[in-house]
Every structure is written in structure tokens, then in C-alpha cells.
């Protein structure tokens, strides 16, 4: 699960070299459980919710949140995945190719959409995702859940649910995977 999409522009791929483990697998699952409860609290239940994971790192997190919300609310919460390659504002500046076609499980008009990503940094991915979402219907509200907030925002965008605030340098890289959250560099 690469978070290259959210890292500083000069970083163009490379192999991730972890320097420190920030969260273990148990910490991540505890954070997801807390976020699930925050979502239920804020939306007074799970009715009308749709989860949309951003390719690629947000997709497994959205799926975990969906099963947590389903067990809390007692009713299935649909989950989709979205690739925002065609909406990026840096097209033509570097190779961009979708990982997998977007799948949105329901008409979003009137629903509350919870965008899920692994890491938020500049906010440009989320901006692109908001543009893409509008093409699938007029959601009643859009909320944002992320596992890690690195700071370094370049756009007025804020996450509603955060697993961990993690101050970083721009040249660092944060990797969220099944093994937890690690911080390091792309080399």
C-alpha cells in the first residue's frame, strides 16, 4: 500500500525503507473501532451511509470500517472504491494510471458518503475525490476518515475522523499496511 500519491511532489516512486513503526496492527484496529463509533455517533446511526475507499490504500480500511459499522448498526453499510487518477491536478506532470476501475455501490444522491484514505497530506487527492464524487450524484454530506494525518496541507481540507496525527517532514514517507503504520523514506 503506497502513499506516494500524498507525498511531496519530488518523490517519484522508489522502495519504501521503514525507519520506525508508529502503530502496530492492534493499534490500527483499535483506531478503526474508535472511528467506527465516532461515525455512528456523529451520524446518529448507520442509515444512509456509503463508504468509499480511495485506491489503493483506502480500500482495505474502508472494507474494515464497513464490517465494523455493519456489526454496530446491525445493517449492512455498502462500500465502494474510487480511483481518482482522471481527476488529479498533476496529470501530465508524472505518470498516472488507475489501479482498478472505480466501483460505487449505490446512487449517492441523498446519502452520506464517508471517504476513506490511509494518509492525508497535501489534500489534493481528497480534492480530486470530491470532484469525482460529484459525478455520481449529489451526496447529502461527505465526510473524510483517514488513518494518518501528516499535515502539510495545500488546500483547505480537514479530516473528520483521524486514526493518528503524525507530524512529518515532507521528504518522509508514511506506509499504512496490514502490519500497521510505519514512517521512513523512499529510496
Amino acid at each position: 500500500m503506497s502513499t506516494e500519491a500524498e507525498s511531496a511532489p519530488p518523490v517519484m516512486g522508489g522502495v519504501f525503507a521503514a525507519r520506525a513503526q508508529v502503530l502496530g496492527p492492534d493499534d490500527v484496529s483499535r483506531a478503526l473501532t474508535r472511528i467506527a463509533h465516532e461515525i455512528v455517533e456523529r451520524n446518529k446511526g448507520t442509515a444512509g451511509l456509503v463508504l468509499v475507499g480511495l485506491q489503493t490504500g483506502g480500500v482495505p480500511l474502508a472494507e474494515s470500517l464497513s464490517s465494523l459499522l455493519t456489526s454496530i448498526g446491525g445493517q449492512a453499510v455498502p462500500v465502494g472504491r474510487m480511483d481518482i487518477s482522471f481527476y488529479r491536478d498533476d496529470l501530465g506532470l508524472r505518470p498516472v494510471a488507475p489501479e482498478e476501475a472505480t466501483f460505487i455501490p449505490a446512487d449517492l444522491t441523498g446519502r452520506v458518503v464517508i471517504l476513506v484514505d490511509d494518509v492525508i497530506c497535501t489534500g489534493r487527492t481528497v480534492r480530486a475525490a470530491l470532484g469525482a464524487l460529484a459525478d455520481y450524484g449529489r451526496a447529502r454530506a461527505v465526510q473524510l476518515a483517514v488513518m494518518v494525518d501528516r499535515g502539510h496541507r495545500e488546500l483547505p481540507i480537514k479530516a473528520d475522523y483521524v486514526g493518528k496525527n503524525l507530524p512529518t517532514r515532507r521528504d518522509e514517507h508514511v506506509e499504512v499496511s496490514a502490519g500497521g503504520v510505519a514512517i521512513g523514506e523512499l529510496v
Partner: protein
Amino acid sequence: MSRSLLSVDDLGAAGIQSIMRLSDSFAEVSSRSIPRVPALRGKTIAALFYEDSTRTRLSFEAAAKRLSADVMSFAVKSSSMSKGESLRDTVQTLGAMGADAFVVRHASAGAARLVSRWTDAAVVNAGDGWHEHPTQALADCYTLHRRFGGAAFTMAGLHAVIVGDVKHSRVARSNVKAFTALGARVTLVGPATLMPPCLDGWPVSVEVDLDRVLPDADIVYLLRLQSERTDESLLPSQREYTARWGLTRRRAALLPGRATVMHPGPMNRGVEIDPEVADREFCVVGDQVRNGVPVRMAVLFWLLGSGLPTGESSGQVLAVDGGDAHQPDSIGASDEEVR
């Protein structure tokens, strides 16, 4: 110089597969109620059609518009061409107006390659004489992928039979390259007068008797028979052609159950194919047209919007349009060379 798609050779197997993968995403875009993404906002695509064409031209225009690009369309009959302007001057004029890509259809083989020499914009060959029609081949491969399924985008183990006027067919040439690149076995069937004079180096076998190959065919690709070929004395008559190489009801019964029948259009019902057979489920002509739009979106996005990371080279920086792009040394350098 930007990259161009002049021949299926420019892509190779990995490139074709990357275009297929991209096409999946654009098929999803095309299925939405708002089938448009801002990927090529601000780009201008000039369609230079020196030959009559309806479906290819409209397909490219629809693809460009769904990517939010602007389209400059150019009909030869209403243009300065009728006043004697040369192809080169036309290309330079449209280039001066800011075209980022040219889509070129021309009756002469190599026209698109010439255009790519005269301009810094990307060039897509939309059919040049008897030479190639790469986006048709890509649409056909994508149609077969959707029909046969599988995540690997390969045609290994499939037997494609291409029937009819291979000699004058750019579609046949591009499809032989694309099908064999993806691992299919290809047999050409047709009268000797309509076979290319030399097939040395073509990875195909040739057969005259259609009945013999049909029971072993996964794909039957019928080529359009142009009526002027009978005037050129290459065929005794259209009826004779239909009797020996047309997909009649009797021949359709020889096909295995898994077979798919394709045709690049426009079909001559009653000549290459029986009118009733053309409407059967195994005939995917409608899908070929439908899939043309997402495939051409993928091609335009690859040329103008992004690099095309293939399996082996993902993460590598590919040449993109613009002054800082890597300059291939030779004209029409293949994708591999650009890397």
C-alpha cells in the same frame, strides 16, 4: 516530440495490455450518468479525416469529449484541402492553433507517420491506406477480453481466423499484429487474389478452404469486401465470394459453441455474412463499436494525460508530452525505445 500511436508495434504486448487495463476504467466512466472526466481538460485534439469515416471519427470525438478535451474537427470537403492546401501545411496550421494531438485518417499508407514528423503534437493513426488501423485492433482485443474474461488480457490458446480481403485491409494487418502479440494463433483465409503478395515473416498460416478451419476457430474475423474489388477482376463475382468465403448459415453451423464472430464494419449483409447470422448472439459487431470509445479514451489519455506504466516498468518516469520529455532519436520510436 511527443509519443504517437502509429502502429500496433508501438505498443507491444505489454502496451496493449496496459491500454486494456486503462480501458476498463474508461468503460466504467462511460457507464455513468455523467460519462465525463476532467482528465484532458485544456487539451485540443484535431481530427484530420482525409477519407470518409463515420464510426471511427465519431468514436474518437466521443472519446475526446468524455475526457473533457476540445475537438477540432476537419472535414476535407469543406476545408482548404479542396483549395489545394497540402497535408503538411494543414498540419502546421492546426498546430499553430494549438492542437495537442492529431487523429489522422488518410488513404495513403504512412500518412500518420509523416504527420508525426511534421509536428510536436501526439499523432494517432486512425487508418492509413492498406497499412494499419491500430485503435480498431485495440477495440477488437478489448471486445474479446470482455467476452472471454480473465484478468490477464492474453489470447494464449485462442485461434483467430481472419477471412476475406486481407490484401487491402489495414484492419487485418493491425489485428494480426495485436492478436499474435497477445499469444493467439492466426489463420488467414481468402482467395489468393486478395492475399498480400508476400507473407514472409508474418506469424500466420494461410488457408483457402474456409470450411476446413471453422470447426477449430475461436474467433472468426470477417473483413469487408469492397465492391470495387470485383471491378478490378480480383473476384469473378460477389456471389462467388459469398459461396466460398461468406459466413453462411451452413458454415455458421460448423463453428464450435465458444466461437465469436467479428467484423470491423460497415457489414455487407448477404456478402461476407448471412443477414440472419449477423444478428446472432455470437456476432459482437455492436460490442466492437461500443468498446471503441473507452479504448480510444485510453489511447488519448495515454498519449496526452499520463505515462503508461506497464507491468515491468511501473514507477519509472515515462516520457510525457511537453518540452522536457525524453526525445526519441528515431522517428516513430517504439514505446520501448522511448523508455
